[in-house]
């Protein structure tokens, strides 16, 4: 119980720190981005409108402390400010529009590569020195060593441009009206296929090799040798004895991966012009859209923290050694 309280306290502390860093970071940057933005609106808006706008962004004459309080209040009430880039669209609306795309694409690709990779890792550690054990890690590592946005570019070039099998960009065919029609869903799947393949290929090797190494490590433990000497069946030895323990470190990586789903494959989304949050963040930075940057940042931070908390709590149930404390 103490462990659980500890973790939750930790979660709250780091959440607060993340929020505060998120507040301080843009304010540490030299030159007021807001001024640049207001300069853009100079001719179009009256002075009073500009003042009102400044006030709504919490920039202006208020003290830093007051800004911080306003910022926290805005966060809690989901009033995340208005986008500079697409003024006056609320940032929360823009995020709402792009998050499902990212979660759909990156989330599903991550899940696929975790399950396939872990299963393959168990399999090849079982067949040590077999054909797959010798080739698969190298082949998949070659994929890992390649910059995945370049692989994505190649895919666009070969399958999109040369062969014309798949569309080269966007989340769905803009000619189709969104809705629950089979045409629309097919269009989404068709557009998601190439980015998903590059994401899966890029992530797979990490899971395979990680699981393989964990398995080999666990297979060297005394209790496995004992079980083997006792005559436990190989399949039971692999799954019930070794894989159960070897999978624990994978869980930590899984938490990070799930947290990173929200930040998504920024580069992949850029290459495919996919309407997700990564694309949103890139264009926000390019146009210095600070409310947007802050919000997407916070979203990503919260996602990682929550995923970590869940895995930490799971870990304590799965591995009693952690619960009873590390040293001494």
């Amino acid at each position, binding site marked *: 119980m103490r462990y659980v309280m500890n973790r939750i306290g*930790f979660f709250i*502390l*780091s959440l607060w*720190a*993340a929020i505060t*860093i998120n507040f301080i*970071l843009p304010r540490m*940057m*030299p030159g007021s981005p807001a001024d640049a933005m207001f300069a853009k609106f100079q001719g179009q808006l009256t002075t009073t409108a500009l003042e009102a706008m400044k006030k709504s962004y919490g920039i202006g004459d208020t003290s830093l402390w007051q800004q911080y309080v306003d910022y926290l209040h805005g966060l809690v009430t989901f009033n995340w400010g208005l986008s500079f880039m697409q003024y006056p669209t609320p940032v929360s609306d823009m995020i709402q529009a792009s998050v499902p795309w990212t979660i759909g694409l990156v989330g599903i690709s991550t899940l696929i590569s975790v399950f396939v990779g872990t299963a393959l890792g168990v399999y090849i550690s079982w067949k*040590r*020195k077999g054909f797959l054990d010798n080739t698969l890690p*190298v082949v998949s*590592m*070659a994929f*890992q*060593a*390649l*910059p*995945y*946005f*370049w*692989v994505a*570019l*190649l895919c*666009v*070039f070969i399958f999109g*441009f*040369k062969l014309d099998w798949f569309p080269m960009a966007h989340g769905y065919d803009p000619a189709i009206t969104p809705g629950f029609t089979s045409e629309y869903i097919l269009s989404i799947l068709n557009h998601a296929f190439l980015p998903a393949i590059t994401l899966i290929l890029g992530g797979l090797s990490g899971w395979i090799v990680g699981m393989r190494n964990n398995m*080999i*490590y666990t*297979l*060297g433990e005394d209790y*496995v*040798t004992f079980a083997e000497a006792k005559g436990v069946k190989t399949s039971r030895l692999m799954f019930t004895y070794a894989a159960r323990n070897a999978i624990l*470190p994978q869980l*930590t990586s899984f938490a*990070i991966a799930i*947290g*990173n789903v929200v*930040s998504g494959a*920024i*580069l992949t989304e*850029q*290459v495919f012009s996919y309407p997700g949050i990564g694309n949103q*963040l*890139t264009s926000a*930075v*390019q146009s*210095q859209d600070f409310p947007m*940057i802050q919000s*997407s*940042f916070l979203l990503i*931070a919260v996602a*990682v*923290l929550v995923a*970590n908390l869940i895995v930490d709590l799971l870990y304590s149930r799965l591995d009693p050694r952690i619960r009873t*404390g*590390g*040293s*001494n």
Partner: protein
Amino acid sequence: MKTELQTSSQHNMEAPTPRRNNFTIFLGAFKPFFTNAKSATGFTIFLIFLFIAIFAPLIAPYEPSAAIYLPNLSPTADHWFGTTNTGQDIYSQFIFSARNTMIVGFGAGILSTIIGLIFGVVGGYRGGLTDSILSFVTNLFLVMPGLALLIVIQAYMTASTPFVTGLIIALTGWAWGARVFRSQTMTLANRDFISAARMSGMSSFRIMLTQICPNMMSIIAGNIMFATLGAILAEAGLAFLGFQDINSISWGTMLYWASNNAALIRGAWWWFIPPGLGIGLVGLSLVLMNFAVDQITNPRLKGQKRRKKHGRKTARA
């Protein structure tokens, strides 16, 4: 007592000590780099790129940023990889980019591993309040998603050089390594040989340095390799997005110009394939060499047999 505890078994075993000099021993440590086909390939690729990086000005036929040749050439005898739309020689750019990429990659990889070691090992070994504070900082850096944070910082640095990018990558990207080191230290800290070292009166600092770190050498070496790979990929990605100085010479910047000038749609594969292949080959060499590192430091990976007989013997002696 200390020497027994450290027994990195096979090294002690295979040296019947007819007094080798230091250099032979040093070379001997690199033996697995050549005996294993995978790591030999990796090491060869690595040496080739190291050679290119060091002698770039001699190898490259032209100035990489001189825009004085015919634009949009396909590969010719004079311009092996063709020219860009502003008439720069792509082959020369490729050669010079290797240099920047190697420096940035290895600099950032080693720096981030050192930071990670400090945070991970100290936190994992000390436990308690120290651990709470250190892993709190680690978690904070984990929370800040690497690429997104890099993008934001780059937006503020506007047009940074590849070296500044490397520094930022190292300062933001050490957390993952620290976490791995910490959990490994935590499992090691409970082992008997650590207790023995502690009881023999060794200081915490010495235990961390001489007992814990050598026992996770494969993880450290692996971390350097993968941090380097990560740094190379991150630098390429940032440059590709155009967040690095777009006049710098790097493989990522080459890809930025290629994709911004519609090299894809013009079918100019000679422009965007070489930079990606360069990154991929350097990365592959790192990954392959990691196999050799595993072989040197992790006897368990050596053969099918899981338990060595002489391992037992040394433990008992």
